[in-house]
């Protein structure tokens, strides 16, 4: 039997504007079927221009070598690895929203999961560029793959966290892509069945894999989504955990600390949600999706931001405390001089990180602030700046003063091509995102429809009868 569709009237509706099924289809397909706006073109070309600059910067690096970057013997990891970790971190929110929130049954995920997953995939693509080009001789990149070869066979080092990264990032990319695409199939079918032009019929027909909406297919699809969600939950944890292992397995002060894995994951979710916020605030406005991405959604995401920001804060303080408690003078020096001392050469980055990641998100304890779009947007950008600082702090402040004072260095500032590479990944990210926003259903149509009867505003008004019932009457009528 169909189950009673009911939720408490105290919860705000997640779909507003008196929608029915057909209107949901209309609203979400409209931007796909309309001609791109001028604004879209402007944004898209800026993104492509950035991408081109990035391609040129990478070309310089590949042709002339890593010397194009300002890394030196002490600071062997700088912007490149900082950017890598930053992008990978951002690439965590999509899977978190789709997978963990699916398991925790947070209804608001339906409004934002599609865009968040797309963002995840693009962010991971950007992240992957950095370690690959950091190799220097990028044409040898296939050396990281374990395959029987004529060099012995000389195998890769399975004990190395850098190799774990190869496996983690590629698995994560593959699984996220499969998860995202399997969710897209029914929505592509919707677009296909509405298509007017031949080209659209062909392309969306190919993309939808011949989806019909058969009940048996839906049953398998549900099972697939649930298992993929179940798999992605530990997977998303494992990816940033393994990234943290790149640092924590070493014996470098400030890197070797056991709390790194969960704290990296919390930080990743934190920055990922911030990026989703930045994009959603714009997307909902540009594509008139305010009825699907409501202030309720924004507020829920801001709650996750303050939660993860505080967890990260708890970890920062734990580390700082242990820097003292361990009474290990190297740890102490790193944490209390190289980082926490504002007047040390890189002290500013530590306090930048603290201000952006721990202190300022506390503003979201206030409901008014959580529901303020301007504050939300501003904060989401600030958080991502803060999270970039975090990775910079971890990498550079631990490296620039190592065990050998003669090689101490503070003279690290990125070269044009280092910056260009970073800007280029922004280009890649936004090029992909603009294409996605134009040609893909940015909100999961089928998923919105499946929660519409529970959480749509008109449909909720129809629940007055159940809301008014005495508890005894209610259980008599509906308890199973």
């Amino acid at each position: 039997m169909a189950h009673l569709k009911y939720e408490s009237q105290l919860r705000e509706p997640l779909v507003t504007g008196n929608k029915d099924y057909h209107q949901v289809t209309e609203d979400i397909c409209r931007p796909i079927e309309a001609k791109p706006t001028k604004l879209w073109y402007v944004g898209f070309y800026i993104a492509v221009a950035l991408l081109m600059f990035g391609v040129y910067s990478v070309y310089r690096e590949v042709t002339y070598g890593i010397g194009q970057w300002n890394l030196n013997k002490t600071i062997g990891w700088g912007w490149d690895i900082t950017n890598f970790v930053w992008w990978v971190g951002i690439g965590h929110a999509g899977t978190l929203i789709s997978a963990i929130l699916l398991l925790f049954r947070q209804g608001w995920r339906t409004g934002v999961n599609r865009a968040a997953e797309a963002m995840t995939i693009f962010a991971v693509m950007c992240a992957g560029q950095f370690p690959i080009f950091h190799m220097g001789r990028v044409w040898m990149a296939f050396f990281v793959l374990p395959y029987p070869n004529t060099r012995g066979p000389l195998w890769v080092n399975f004990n190395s966290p850098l190799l774990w990264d190869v496996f983690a990032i590629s698995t994560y990319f593959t699984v996220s892509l499969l998860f995202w695409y399997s969710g897209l199939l029914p929505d592509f079918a919707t677009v296909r069945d509405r298509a007017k032009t031949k080209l659209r019929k062909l392309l969306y027909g190919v993309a939808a894999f011949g989806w019909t909406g058969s009940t048996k297919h839906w049953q398998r699809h549900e099972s697939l989504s649930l298992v993929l969600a179940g798999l992605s939950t530990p997977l998303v944890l494992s990816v940033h955990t393994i990234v943290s292992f790149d640092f924590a397995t070493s014996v470098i002060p400030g890197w070797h600390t056991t709390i790194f894995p969960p704290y990296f994951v919390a930080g990743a979710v934190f920055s990922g949600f911030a990026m989703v916020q930045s994009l959603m605030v714009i997307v909902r406005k540009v594509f008139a999706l305010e009825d699907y991405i409501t202030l309720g959604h924004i507020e829920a995401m801001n709650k996750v931001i303050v939660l993860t920001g505080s967890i990260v804060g708890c970890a920062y303080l734990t580390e700082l405390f242990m820097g003292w408690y361990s009474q290990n003078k190297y740890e102490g020096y790193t944490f209390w001089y190289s980082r926490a001392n504002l007047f040390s050469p890189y002290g500013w980055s530590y306090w930048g990180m603290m201000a952006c990641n721990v202190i300022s998100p506390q503003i979201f304890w206030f409901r008014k602030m959580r529901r303020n779009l301007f504050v939300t947007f501003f904060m989401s950008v600030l958080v991502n700046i803060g999270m970039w600082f975090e990775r910079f702090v971890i990498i550079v402040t631990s490296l620039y003063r190592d065990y050998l004072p003669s090689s101490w260095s503070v003279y690290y500032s990125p070269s044009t091509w280092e910056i260009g590479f970073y800007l280029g990944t922004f280009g890649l990210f936004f090029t992909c995102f603009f294409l996605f926003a134009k040609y893909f259903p940015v909100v999961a149509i089928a998923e919105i429809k499946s929660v519409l009867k529970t959480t749509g505003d008109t449909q909720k008004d129809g629940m007055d009868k159940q809301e008014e019932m005495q508890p005894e009457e209610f259980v008599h009528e509906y308890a199973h």
Partner: protein
Amino acid sequence: MASIREQFEIPGKMKTWALGLIAVGVLAMIIGLVTKGMGDEHEKTVFIGTLMYNSLFFMLICNASMFFICATTLAMGGWQVVFRRIPEAISTLVPIFGGIAWVVLMYIVFIDHNHHIYHWLSEEAKTDHILSGKLGFLNPVFFLIWTTLAIGLWIILGAKMRKLSSEADEAALRGEEPGKSFVWRNTVSASLFIVWFALTVGSTVPWLWMMSIDAHWYSTMYSWYTFASSFVAGMSLIALFVIYLKNKGYLEYTNQEHLHDIGKFMFAFSIFWTYLWFSQYMLIWYANIPEETIYFKTRVQGPYKGLFFLNLIINFVCPILILMKRSAKRNYTLMTFMAVLIIFGHWIDFHQMVMGSLSKEHVTLGWLDFGIAAFFIGMIILFTGRALAKKPLVPKYHPFLKESVIHHT
């Protein structure tokens, strides 16, 4: 019209069992006191250490119930409302076990000055170049203040949450305005509890009480690890009481759907615990710094080897293999078995965390441990039963009750 059966009466058998277990526990403690507590320094340390880890473990798993309530309140969860009174009842043990733990800890620090447990209490700590640096944190005065504050605020904030919950028994809560205000006030109290929980269980308290036994050693993960261990055991305890009441014919609106979700928590947090376990162990193993690996020396290569691997089998292998299936999480017998196993597993975990540092030459797990545990289990049964009988079992007018009744996994 069906009325909601909501008044729990303590069955005679429950009382007998509880009192029996308490009697066994008291007897074990008396014998322990005579045979070990009066013995040499080592025996005495074992006796007090056993008392200490038991009181901390059982206090933390009862406090985990309140954490569960507050976390679900903040997440605006609706599904748990039908059985919410059970974690509430379990959390009434926090003042009792908190009191016991406080007495044990204060006895160690102030009366016994047991530097075999807390090395930082000894005279030589003042000259030890590492320990002397830590004395700003590891000193009796701070220990007293922070312990008292931690336990005290858990008690006060927990009581506040339970008091708020009583409002849900009154019809006055019906309607939108009272409902909204109720949810809001719950949110405020729950966030206070969670913040304090993070500042204590999530960070300082496990360092102070347990990690400082190995006074030279440190691990930033330690507190989160302890939290995961106590939380998954706490969820299992809730599951046990839900199943018990269900078998007694109470909680008619709690069904397999709810049990399934509790099972998911047990499953997920077992894996989370393993994740933290692995992260801590692997990083220390990999970096191989002597100051750090010393902690695992007795545990992995010494006499605790057996317990160490048993810990992993019970707390990781069993839950992941058995609880993975949907049907297992909906099966009352299997869930009872798993809940008991998980609580036992994490009790073993606490045992090796504390005793692994106190009795390095041989494992002391024996009649005394089980006897003292029996005392705490008896107390849990007795006082949870009492608390359950005091309030209606179902918060009838809770704004999310109806959602919880029709909850569907």
